[in-house]
C-alpha cells in the first residue's frame, strides 16, 4: 500500500514536471538561467540612508524560519512536559541531548557551558530550520502564475542560507563573541599572546602573520562552507530539472527528475543536518578555544 502510494506520488510529480516543460515549449518567454533564482528583489523597500533593509525573499525566509524555530523549541521542549514522555517529548529531549553532548561539551569548557549553551543550541536549531525550509516548496518567489484569474506566486525552493550575507552575519556573530570572550577571560595581552604558538623566536615574523590571517580565515571558511553547500545543493537540483528546459526535450524528464530526486533526498537527509551541526560545533570550538587557550 505504501509502495503504491509512493509510486503514485512519484508519477504525479514527474508528470507535472513534463507538463511544465510542454507549456514552456509553447510560449517561450526568456532563456533559462539557474542564477536568476538567487536574484533578490525588494518586496517591501526600506531604505535607511545608504543601508538597504528591504524585505526580500531571503528576509522573508529568515523571518519564517525564526518563527518556526521558536515554535519548534516551545512545542518540543516547553509544552506539556511530563515524567512519561511521548514521541514529541522524546524528540525534544533527543535534540537537547545532541546540542549538549555533541555540540556544547565538545568545544566549550565546563565553566562556560551555562553561558554559551543557549547560543550554540539555538544556532544549531536555527540553521537546521533555515536549511530545511529551503527544501520545502513554498509560495515565496518572484514569479507569478495565474490560476482561475488570480495571480499567485509559484512554489519555489530557496534557502536563506544560500545567500552569502546571511551566513556571513552568523559567522560574524561567532567571530565577535569569540574575541570578546577571549579578552574577557584572559585579558587583552594574555589573549593575543595565546595566538602565538610555541616556536623559536626567529620564526615569529613568519608564524605571527599566518596566525592572524588564520583568525580571519575562520570567518571566511565558516560562512562560505554553509553558503556554498546550500547553493550547490539547490543549483544541482535546479540544473537537473533545468536540463529539460535548456535542451527542450520532454523525455529527458525520465532521467533528470529521478536524479534531481536523489540529490534532493541526499540534501534533506544528510547535508541539512550535518551543516547545522558543523556550524554549531565549530562555533562552540572557536569560543571554547578562545576562553581556554591551549598554553
Amino acid at each position, binding site marked *: 500500500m505504501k509502495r503504491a502510494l509512493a509510486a503514485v506520488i512519484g508519477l504525479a510529480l514527474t508528470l507535472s514536471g513534463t507538463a511544465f516543460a510542454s507549456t514552456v515549449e509553447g510560449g517561450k518567454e526568456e532563456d533559462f538561467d539557474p542564477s536568476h533564482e538567487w536574484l533578490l528583489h525588494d518586496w517591501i523597500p526600506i531604505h535607511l540612508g545608504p543601508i538597504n533593509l528591504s524585505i526580500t525573499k531571503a528576509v522573508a525566509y529568515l523571518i519564517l524560519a525564526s518563527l518556526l524555530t521558536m515554535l519548534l523549541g516551545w512545542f518540543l521542549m516547553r509544552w506539556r512536559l511530563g515524567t512519561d514522555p511521548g514521541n514529541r517529548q522524546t524528540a525534544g529531549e533527543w535534540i537537547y541531548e545532541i546540542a549538549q553532548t*555533541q555540540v556544547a561539551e*565538545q568545544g566549550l569548557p565546563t565553566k562556560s557551558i551555562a553561558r554559551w549553551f543557549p547560543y550554540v543550541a539555538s544556532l544549531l536549531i536555527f540553521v537546521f530550520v533555515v536549511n530545511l525550509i529551503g527544501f520545502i516548496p513554498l509560495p515565496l518567489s518572484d514569479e507569478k502564475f495565474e490560476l482561475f484569474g488570480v495571480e499567485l506566486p509559484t512554489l519555489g525552493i530557496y534557502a536563506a542560507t544560500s545567500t552569502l550575507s546571511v551566513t556571513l552575519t552568523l559567522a560574524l556573530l561567532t567571530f565577535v563573541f569569540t574575541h570578546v570572550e577571549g579578552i574577557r577571560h584572559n585579558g587583552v595581552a594574555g589573549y593575543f599572546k595565546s595566538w602565538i604558538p610555541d616556536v623559536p623566536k626567529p620564526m615569529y615574523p613568519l608564524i605571527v602573520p599566518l596566525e592572524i590571517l588564520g583568525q580571519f580565515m575562520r570567518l571566511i*571558511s565558516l560562512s*562560505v*562552507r554553509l553558503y*556554498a*553547500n546550500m547553493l*550547490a545543493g539547490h543549483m544541482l537540483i535546479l540544473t537537473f530539472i533545468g536540463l529539460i528546459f535548456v535542451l527542450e526535450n520532454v523525455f529527458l524528464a525520465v532521467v533528470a527528475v529521478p536524479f534531481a530526486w536523489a540529490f534532493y533526498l541526499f540534501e534533506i537527509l544528510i547535508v541539512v543536518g*550535518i*551543516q547545522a*551541526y*558543523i556550524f554549531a*560545533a*565549530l562555533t562552540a570550538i572557536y569560543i571554547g578555544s578562545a576562553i581556554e587557550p591551549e598554553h
Partner: protein
Amino acid sequence: MTFAAMVFAAAEDGVDAGKAVALALGIGLGALGAGVGIGNIFGSMIQAVARQPELRGELTGIQWLGFALTEAVVFYGLIGGLLAFVLV
C-alpha cells in the same frame, strides 16, 4: 566576414571557453582533493571502529566534523570557479 571580425569572434569564444574551463577546473580539482580526503576519513573511521567498537559514539562526532571540513574544500573550488565565471 573579414579577417579582423573572425579574430574578434574567436577571441570572444576564447573568453567564454576560458570561463567554462575555470569553472570546471575549480570544481574538478576541488572534488579531486576532497574525494581523497573524505575517503581517508571514512577509511580511518572503519579501522578505528573495527579495533575499538566501544569508541564509536565518541568517534562519530569527530568523523562528521572532519567530513564537513574536508567537503568544504570542493565548495571553495566551486566559489572560485563561479567568481571567475561571473566576474571576468
